[in-house]
């Protein structure tokens, strides 16, 4: 790769960390759909809880975000909460937690 072709890539890498955990818009839509529909079968489509607990901001506020992301990624053995690692990256699990803790998109 010639240096002038490399330059834009370097620029890209330099700014990347700021939004590295932000999935692309199309992927965000997929994740929102997954959470509302498929997580919704246990947590409720409005995320108010069902067989699994409520995932609304008020109920998650006092819980560490990394722990919640790990719960999504690895599941919780001994409970019905399954691991989702075959369907998303850890960064995406983290993004879901960020959204859950603020306001989850429709």
């Amino acid at each position, binding site marked *: 790769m010639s240096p002038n072709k490399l330059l834009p890539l370097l620029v890209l890498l330099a700014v990347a960390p700021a939004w590295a955990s932000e999935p692309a818009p199309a992927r965000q839509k997929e994740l929102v759909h997954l959470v509302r529909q*498929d997580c*919704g*079968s246990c947590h*409720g*489509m*409005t995320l*108010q809880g069902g067989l699994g607990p409520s995932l609304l901001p008020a109920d998650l506020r006092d819980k560490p975000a990394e722990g919640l992301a790990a719960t999504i990624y690895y599941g919780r053995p001994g409970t*019905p909460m399954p691991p989702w690692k075959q369907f998303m990256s850890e960064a995406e699990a983290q993004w879901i937690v960020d959204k859950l803790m603020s306001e989850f998109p429709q």
Partner: protein
Amino acid sequence: MKLILSLFLAALLGACATPQPLRGTGDLGLVIERATGHVTLVNTSSRQPYARIAGLGDLSHASAVYSRDGRYAFIFGRDGGLTKIDLLEGKIVKRVIQAGNAIGGSISQDGRIVVAQNYTPGGIKAFDAETLELLAEVPAEYAPGQFSKVVGLADSPGNKFVYALFDGGEIWVTDFSNPRQPTTQRYPAGKQPYDGLVTPDGRYFLAGLFGEDGVAMLDLWQPEKGARKILENYGRGEEKLPVFKMPHLRGWSVAQGKAYLPAIGRHEVLVVDVATWKEVGRIPVRGQPVFVMARPDGRQVWVNFAFPDNGKMDVIDTLAGKVVHAFEPGKGILHMEFTPRGENIWLSARDDHKVLIYDTARFTKQGEIAADSPSGIFFTARAARIGF
């Protein structure tokens, strides 16, 4: 697409204002549209919708039961709403918010009591089917100050209701002979019952266990003998696959003396001899089964699956004992319902926003109906069945 759908639905809304001619309800039913709090009323003879009703709240995981005349549907919404609908007039008769978080309900043998099962606050509540007035409440307090989520509620003869406690690990039988003063018997069942069913004759209550292998079974003709465990050895020592959606037991049937049940954590349907309650076979299928439903004549068993296999359907021929038809009818197949005598099956394809109608003998598509994120499909034939 969205626009066409809403135009179509608007046309439907207009249609329900015209008076219906005198008719019975035996070929009617409803489709839950879970995202938008609507139900669409359908006719299984014409295979067409005939009315649409709005304002039912959060309908994710909603289910319905019917009055014994098949005219009224009682719909239990996730947000605790209980709505009574008149299928002939195509309108809401009454709606109450009865709990914070509900999961389903049932109707008594005599048709007078509607019972809702709730997650929060955990327990059941009984309502007068006529007026939806609250009659009694049974909190699922299995230890002092500890309330359980209630699952698997089913009606059984004698105005009794049977259900399981997910957190409490028990089966409870509540007798509503005196509707305002119910009495409850408790039976230890096993770890984390996730759903339950009552056999078509009303004799046995089965609760699937999540926290251990096996199924808890209570003989309602001799409940004093307590719940015993069946299918204890299934899957022993094998590692379970993750379960991305809990299987549903209600809606199962017995075919030719055998019961077909979803295995949990395995891509299999379990076949159980109902005389001995021993496992007599397992049929491999293409995912974690959610609904395993027999056609009314028992010749076929249709299976849908949990995420990520929820676009697939497998059809088991009970004579051959294996899958004879496998297909991908649409995206997000959440539920299915047979017409009363089984010539057609209706499937809800949530992500395609359609209900698909198939011929069960030839597996050909007979038609489809537009619906906004359809989930449960419930036909009035349920009115006459024990445990539905």
